[in-house]
């Protein structure tokens, strides 16, 4: 666990990174030739969804480690990362929906990419609910770990959905074989925002782990019969 000073530095770095990202996204990057100004939502939508993939990848790795080693800290990291992943996925879906209205003419459509992303969100909301439904924390952690591993498997399906099926959503422009289809100036804005959101994820994770630390301490005291 990192110290309070380092946590504060991480928070400041995230805030600074987001401000720089906003500046580059709104001032430095040119408007899109086809979509115009509304394409600037991409600098929010794409980093949010990519960081949610990162959060669920952390859940995947930590869940495997928890099932193998049964160490509480692995479960604590998985639980914390899943909560942040749910937040980022929900915001990415909301931002995408707002972007869809002026570009596709609709707030929502049951397109393969949108549907599989919604399934991902529902799986991880279920993951968080599962913990509150099981009384024994170690059994709850085991069930959640299994769900966390299977839930992550939806991400490759989301990624490939725009290739496998005919969709309204555009094909991958970042995580794709070959050169990116994004213009260089727009790439600078996109990757700056992505980096800022990765730091923000790290900051949220550290803060969320403090809550898990306190929860573990509370459980330990209760197990010792201090009531």
């Amino acid at each position: 666990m990192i110290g309070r000073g380092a946590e504060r530095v991480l928070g400041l770095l995230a805030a600074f990174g987001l401000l720089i990202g906003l500046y580059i996204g709104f001032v430095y990057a040119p408007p899109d030739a086809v979509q115009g100004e509304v394409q600037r939502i991409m600098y929010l939508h794409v980093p949010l969804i990519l960081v949610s993939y990162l959060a669920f990848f952390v859940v995947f790795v930590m869940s495997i480690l928890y099932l193998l080693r049964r160490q509480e800290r692995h479960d604590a990291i998985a639980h914390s990362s899943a909560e942040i992943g749910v937040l980022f996925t929900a915001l990415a879906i909301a931002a995408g929906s707002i972007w869809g209205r002026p570009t596709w003419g609709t707030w929502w459509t049951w397109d393969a990419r949108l549907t599989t992303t919604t399934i991902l969100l529902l799986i991880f909301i279920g993951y968080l609910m599962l913990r509150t439904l099981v009384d024994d924390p170690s059994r709850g952690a085991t069930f959640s770990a299994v769900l966390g591993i299977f839930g992550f498997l939806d991400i490759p399906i989301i990624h490939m959905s725009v290739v496998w099926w005919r969709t309204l959503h555009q094909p991958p422009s970042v995580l794709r074989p070959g050169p990116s289809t994004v213009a260089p100036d727009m790439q600078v804005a996109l990757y700056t925002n992505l980096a800022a959101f990765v730091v923000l994820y790290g900051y949220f994770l550290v803060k969320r782990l403090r809550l898990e630390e306190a929860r573990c301490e509370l459980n330990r005291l209760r197990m010792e019969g201090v009531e």
Partner: protein
Amino acid sequence: MNPWPYILGAYLLAAAGMVCYLVSLRRRTKAMAAQVAALQRHSKEAAS
């Protein structure tokens, strides 16, 4: 169609979501730490 209400709407919604999450984290951590402190105080009193 004026795109700015959509752009600002998306960014403000994301900012509000993140601030609300941060506030919720702070509140939950404080509440949990208060419970831990109360139990520790109780155990010390019981021991003495």
